[in-house]
């Protein structure tokens, strides 16, 4: 062990080294002062970073076509990282778990909303096959996008310990691919939805009355009149359209990260994508609840497309009247429309 021997030998000269050091310190007080500030440069660097205002950054010069690579230090990135690690999980947790808790409480207090007059046995076509196709196209993509997106935010905390690193890495890689590419049929579904349902989702005075009466959700058998879509459904429609548009635009920038002007813009769009996603998922949980467990007979609208006539009369009385008027109109009447 030559190294150890050398150290032992040097240890013998320790008092001598100390005496020389003391002499050096006494003779050169300025140098001694510097030797007690080994982190002086780091402190200055920290002050420099703190002095940079939001949007400021230290850039260099690059010769490759990737101009973003010239960003050397961008202090705003620390705020972005802190947001991703601390605030976003709270926003997501409160929004999603809060919504689940609210729905559970609502189910316990209100119970399942029944068809007050019971099923009539007669049905009326509520959604044509193309409308159901569009709904399920968007919905199925949304579910995969939501789960794979939540995996990005919470997977490391919740799934990694259960799956283990190998399985989690494989699952996450596939989830990322699904997220990237199912975004496109999702966006297509949004556009079709907007085009086919916008006409029936324009807010009107009738919606105010529906909202005043709480949509009849809190009272048994008493439902405010509504056309094809009530105010609650219109709300869901606009959440989907506006939320979906924001998700699409921000997602487009994440899919093609060199479209935004700079790193700061890219970070901005990731925050928009993540926050809207959490709120969007929470809202869709309410939609899924009321369309399945929460309301008797509601699922049939998107299941078979035909709903029970009594259900339709209770929840969309004016729409039923319109449809029945169309059906009973003479063939030469200008109001008659071909059957779907």
């Amino acid at each position, binding site marked *: 062990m030559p190294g150890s021997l050398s150290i032992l030998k040097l240890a013998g000269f320790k008092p001598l080294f100390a005496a020389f050091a003391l002499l050096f310190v006494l003779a050169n007080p300025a140098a001694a002062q510097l030797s007690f500030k080994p982190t002086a440069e780091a402190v200055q660097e920290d002050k420099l970073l703190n002095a940079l205002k939001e949007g400021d950054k230290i850039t260099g010069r690059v010769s490759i076509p990737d101009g973003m690579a010239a960003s050397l230090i961008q202090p705003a990135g620390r705020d972005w990282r802190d947001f991703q690690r601390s605030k976003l999980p709270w926003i997501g947790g409160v929004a999603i778990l809060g919504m689940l808790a609210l729905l559970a409480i609502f189910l316990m207090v209100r119970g399942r909303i029944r068809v007050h007059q019971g099923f009539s046995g007669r049905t009326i076509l509520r959604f044509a096959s193309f409308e159901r196709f569009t709904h399920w196209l968007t919905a199925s993509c949304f579910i995969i996008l939501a789960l794979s997106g939540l995996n990005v935010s919470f997977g490391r905390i919740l799934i990694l310990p259960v799956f283990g690193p190998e399985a989690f890495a494989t699952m996450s890689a596939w989830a990322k691919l699904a997220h990237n590419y199912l975004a496109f*049929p999702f966006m297509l579904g949004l556009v079709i939805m907007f085009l086919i349902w916008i006409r029936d989702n324009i807010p009107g005075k009738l919606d105010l009355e529906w909202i005043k009466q709480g949509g009849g959700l809190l009272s048994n058998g008493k439902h405010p009149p509504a056309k094809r879509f009530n105010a609650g459904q219109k709300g869901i429609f606009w959440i989907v359209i506006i939320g979906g548009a924001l998700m699409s635009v921000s997602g487009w920038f994440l899919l093609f990260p060199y479209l935004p002007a700079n790193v700061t813009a890219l970070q901005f769009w990731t925050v928009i994508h993540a926050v809207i996603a959490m709120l969007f998922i929470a809202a869709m949980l309410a939609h899924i609840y009321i369309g399945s467990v929460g309301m008797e007979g509601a699922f049939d609208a998107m299941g078979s497309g035909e709903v029970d006539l009594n259900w339709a009369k209770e929840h969309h009385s004016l729409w039923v009247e319109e449809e029945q008027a169309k059906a009973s109109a003479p063939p030469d009447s200008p109001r008659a429309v071909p059957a779907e």
Partner: protein
Amino acid sequence: MKSFVAALAFAVIAAVGVAMVLNTFQQSSSVAFSTTGARVGDPGHNLIGPG
């Protein structure tokens, strides 16, 4: 049920189709950002996949 199955099938086909189309446009970073004066190293399979 038919609408649901058709929607699922269409979503998968559309996603695969988009992936194929985009892959014809995409270049790996080692190719896209290399110039005659700067060569970007191939980061390998871990980041951008094979090829």
